[in-house]
């Protein structure tokens, strides 16, 4: 939702006030109409629904400016809620508070000072679990499905399988006991993740260090051939 550094129409207005070091409590918001419009115009490539949110605020500002220039047209007899300067100011102040809180929460996250709970469980011999409620299980599944259904493309960060070097070393040892020689590419498989490739590489180094294998590479960036060492016990 971030648009050119702004979180939304109120954020843009707040930014203008702060840039000019104006007092949010007393600034004549109508005076900011021209600058606001200029900024909105500069925001190209906005999705239509977001443009409208910016235009709503822009039109309020223009209206406020018009009223200050032509006092005769103000006040309208039946003001729409949200069209008065005070209403807009109230929203801006509220938004400023929210932004401050969001910043404070973000600071806490960055500080990394989070708490952890204990998953629980009595020490000592574990008794087989009893008393599970199947409806609670089904409800949990329904909740997960409902959340998963909302996943958009960008949400799907395929969580990489985590590999341990130890486990991978064992696997490679098995492979090398079965094959005289293999290429590094074969060990990586079709579509290796970066993590998998790194762990495989470290495991190979370990085997090399322990004199289980020999490694050959004819050219820079060439195929790496892994060969079982003859003297390997």
């Amino acid at each position, binding site marked *: 939702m971030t648009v050119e550094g702004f979180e939304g129409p109120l954020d843009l207005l707040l930014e203008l006030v702060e840039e000019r070091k104006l007092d949010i409590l007393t600034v004549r918001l109508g005076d900011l109409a021209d600058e606001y419009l200029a900024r909105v115009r500069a925001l190209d490539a906005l999705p239509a629904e977001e443009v409208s949110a910016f235009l709503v605020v822009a039109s309020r500002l223009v209206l406020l400016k018009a009223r200050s220039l032509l006092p005769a047209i103000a006040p309208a007899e039946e003001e729409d809620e949200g069209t008065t300067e005070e209403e807009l100011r109230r929203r801006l102040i509220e938004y400023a508070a929210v932004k401050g809180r969001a910043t404070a929460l973000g600071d806490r*996250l960055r500080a990394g000072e989070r*708490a952890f709970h204990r998953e629980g469980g009595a020490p000592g011999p574990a008794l087989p679990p009893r008393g599970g409620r199947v409806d609670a299980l089904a409800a949990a599944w329904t909740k997960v499905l409902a959340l998963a259904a909302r996943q958009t493309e960008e949400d799907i960060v395929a969580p990489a399988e985590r590999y341990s070097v130890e486990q991978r070393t064992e696997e490679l040892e098995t492979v090398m006991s079965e094959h005289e020689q293999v290429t590094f590419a074969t060990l990586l498989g079709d579509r290796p993740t970066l993590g998998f490739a790194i762990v495989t590489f470290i495991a190979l180094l370990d085997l090399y260090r322990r004199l289980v294998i020999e490694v050959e590479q004819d050219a820079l960036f060439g195929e790496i051939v892994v060969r079982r060492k003859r003297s390997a016990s």
Partner: protein
Amino acid sequence: MTPLARAIEAVLFVAEKPVSRGELARVTGATPKAVEAALAEVGARCEETGLRLAHEGEDWQLITAPEQAPFVAAYLGADRLRLSPAALETLAVVAYKQPATRAEVEAVRGVNCDQTIYTLMQRRLIEERGRRETPGRPILYGTTWEFLECFGLTSLEELPSVMTPEGVQVGRTAEAT
């Protein structure tokens, strides 16, 4: 520590989820009033240790102290939580105004909050809290235990208070309507 405080500490230690004051009274055979005093004792003792006593309303849980996070994360291999500024804004509105509907969050932020609310739900930072009994019966959202945990808070009262443009320090309670 009093015997009751010790018993309560042991029960909270084995519990895998927050335990209500009533449940603590039931399993220890003490009065809710005595439980309250004992909880205060457990909480005070924790202050000198690597643990904290957290609560949301009447539900209590032992957690690790926020400053121990680096060590515990190193042990658990836990990932660092990251949120976009937009998601943090939505979370700030929900946390300080809860329970809040999506429309209320959007009114404050001035933008559509569908996606950020979904992100926060998926991260289990907010959850549904029933519906507001107004036309359309909109869903109400509130923060979760995970939220308190991720931000190292022992209760909602600890939410950072922020200076408003009017120069007033406001925390959550001042904001509650």
